[in-house]
């Protein structure tokens, strides 16, 4: 206990609270919890009574001859006709279950697989629908008109940061912040009228009013047959009705590779133009 407190003298009734929690609650139950798009947590409890009944029904050695498993059902069709088994020990009482397909409903059943392949279910969990973990394929009519912009929108929304810890986020942002820093290296000098910092009010420093902001982006444009299929850096581009296209990219320091590929509608002809852009930013801010 990290607390520094001293018990009030008149209130030292013994607490029953330093006891450990019960191992279980004497029933036969199981529950399934979602962790992320590909992982679930299942916990279970099998009562002595339930075990007795199983032995009575299937023989005293049922737990020895049967393989102890978690049967994981894909509930997409409503009745779980697709499933797989994970071998476990029932004594484990909980397990993390990995599934390949995100975005689906799953249910687990703790049970035994007999040597002849028969499955004896002991207890079933609730059904959990995992998150898809990716952008939806479902688009509405309205959306179709702006499909080509969606990737850009994702970037603006920071989708590349999803699921990263703060350390990684910081890393992936470092480049951008370095740029911001380079641009704003005279950070304390923006002339803003409501700058009510006491120091500034007292000592208005004229020379600090001078400032410079600069950044750079790249615009890529082109044209082809209006019905061609065009990609830029592997991403599909929507063409304007006249076959022209243009995209605007942020341009961080370093090399940027922008291969442009076009394929004719009948897929018999293709053309490629590879554009490389290099940016180097130097500032006198030091």
């Amino acid at each position, binding site marked *: 206990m990290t607390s520094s*407190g001293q018990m009030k003298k008149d209130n030292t009734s013994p607490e029953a609270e330093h006891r450990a929690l019960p191992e279980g609650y004497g029933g036969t139950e199981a529950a399934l919890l979602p962790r*992320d798009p590909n992982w679930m*947590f299942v916990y279970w409890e099998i009562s002595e009574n339930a075990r007795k009944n199983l032995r009575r029904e299937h023989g005293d050695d049922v737990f020895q001859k049967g393989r102890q498993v978690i049967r994981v059902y894909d509930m997409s069709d409503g009745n779980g006709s697709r499933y797989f088994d994970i071998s476990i020990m029932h004594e484990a009482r909980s397990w993390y279950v990995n599934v390949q397909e995100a975005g689906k409903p799953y249910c687990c059943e703790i049970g035994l697989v007999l040597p002849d392949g028969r499955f004896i279910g002991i207890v079933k969990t609730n059904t959990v629908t995992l998150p898809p973990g990716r952008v939806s394929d479902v688009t509405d009519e309205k959306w179709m008109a702006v499909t080509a912009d969606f990737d850009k929108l994702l970037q603006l929304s920071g989708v590349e940061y999803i699921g990263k810890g703060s350390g990684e986020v910081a890393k992936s942002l470092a480049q951008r912040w370095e740029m911001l820093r380079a641009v*704003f290296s005279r950070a304390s000098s923006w002339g803003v009228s409501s700058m009510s910092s006491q120091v500034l009010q007292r000592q208005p420093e004229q020379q600090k009013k001078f400032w410079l902001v600069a950044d750079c982006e790249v615009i890529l444009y082109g044209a082809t047959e209006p019905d061609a299929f065009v990609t830029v850096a592997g991403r599909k581009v929507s063409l304007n009705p006249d076959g022209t296209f243009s995209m605007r990219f942020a341009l961080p320091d370093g090399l940027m590779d922008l291969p442009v590929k076009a394929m004719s509608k009948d897929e018999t002809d293709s053309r490629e133009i590879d554009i490389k852009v290099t940016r180097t930013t130097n500032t006198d801010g030091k």
Partner: protein
Amino acid sequence: MANNEKGYLALVLHAHLPFIRHPEYEDFLEEDWFFEAMCETYLPLLDIYERLTAEGTDFRVTMSLTPPLCNMMADELLRERFRRYYSLRLELAEKEVVRNRNTQFYEVAKMYEAKFRRIRELYEDYYHGRVLDGFRKFQDMGKLEIITCGATHGFLPLELRKEAVHAQIKLAADDYRKHFGRGPRGIWLAECAYNPGDDVFLKAQGIRYFFLETHGIIYGSPRPRYGVYAPVYCPSGVAAFGRDMESAQQVWSAETGYPGDHRYREFYRDLGYDLEYDYVKPYLHQDGVRRNIGMKYHKITGRVQLDQKAPYNPHEAREVAASHAGNFMFNRERQIEHLEHFLGRKPIVVSMYDAELYGHWWYEGTDFLEFLFKKVHYDQRTIKMVTPSEYLSLHPDNQVVQPSMSTWGDKGYNEVWLNGTNDWMYRHLHKQVERMVELANRFPNADGTLKRALNQCAREVVLGMSSDWAFLMTVGTAKQYSTKRFVSHTHRFNGLYEQIMGNRLEEGWLKDLEWRDNIFPEMDYKVFSTGEMEKAAKG
């Protein structure tokens, strides 16, 4: 100049602490979390709102004040203990001004003296110990929108029973009405943890909107047309606003965010360790162990050892906060101009933060906010600050999207609250909820001692549901305390449950628990009944 803004900025501060109150101890370490946040964040924010209002600077901010926080702010015992806390700090600060005359620490010593005097003035003269009235005042002016949160910051996607989800939301809405005189329009789902479909329980309480991490919106279905730069409506009609990562990272990033500036105050060099022992001892806890006392005289300085830190210069730091506010606004202007051009619609940029980041972790963060409010008001026309309610009344037409399950925790889903350090909790928590529902269904009209016992059962269940316990186990801070809290509430609930079912209630023990765990004085256990949940779910 009206209506020529290019987009909106909604600043959302999530203020929350777990319910920590230990009347059984004279002096309790973890209660300091609340007192520190009062001195460093909550009262300084009110101070800003007071000053801006007096100056005639209009501003908009959205703040969650979670039910545990509201209950602590309103609690008689904690109010008394807070008085003791700030009085001791003020006494020390006054001594320090004398001690540091003619030293390089004189300015910072004076800063603390002024700060704690202002705390006293706000707490006593402005609000008479009732800080919630202070927040309510600015809400009634339309400048601050206070939103609620699950009753005890419960982590809803890991609940099995919808009765528990309903109870967290209903208790929160009732508590909000009691403190603020009207229903909540918005809610901060604890940890931004959203489980598809739970929004029907928000709707049942008249809640119009909540907030999501970026991918909660982006991974929604169908694809959200405007990304996170416009809210979406869940199928229930409750709106979800998504977090803007660019503005989040600018402030929040440990390595490159504003708070790391070397001229800002160093958090880890604290007077509790620096001062001569006998001199500082009266300001430590009763066990006499040196700990942080919240007064710090040094700046970050650079990547140097703690003993190499240079003296803090309050004026210099304030200037840096002003320039960071300018930088933040400049970036939002460019971002909003760009988005407006790109989207063909006025975007809303939702910048969400833990309130305690401002002032507590980033000491100058409150100055930063004050400068930001002023600059946005006086210096530009691109951005209009709004509350989510204002936005929804300006732009009621939004796309219908089913958002994805998501949280704002590490990796974006539930792992922070469900991993090897804390997964053992859930079988106990779920059993308590199941039993609580059973009790509520079985006793639709209890009275007398039984009713009191049932209400206390409900208090113990909701206290155990706090996401804070699982979180603290994961990060390893106060792990013992959080484990003990969860175990205690579980034992208390199970004990009461057995006594009720065995018809052998011990009133003395019940009274003791009522005295300890007094959150939600108006608790009505029937909130856990299946009938109430179903009624709410139907809408």
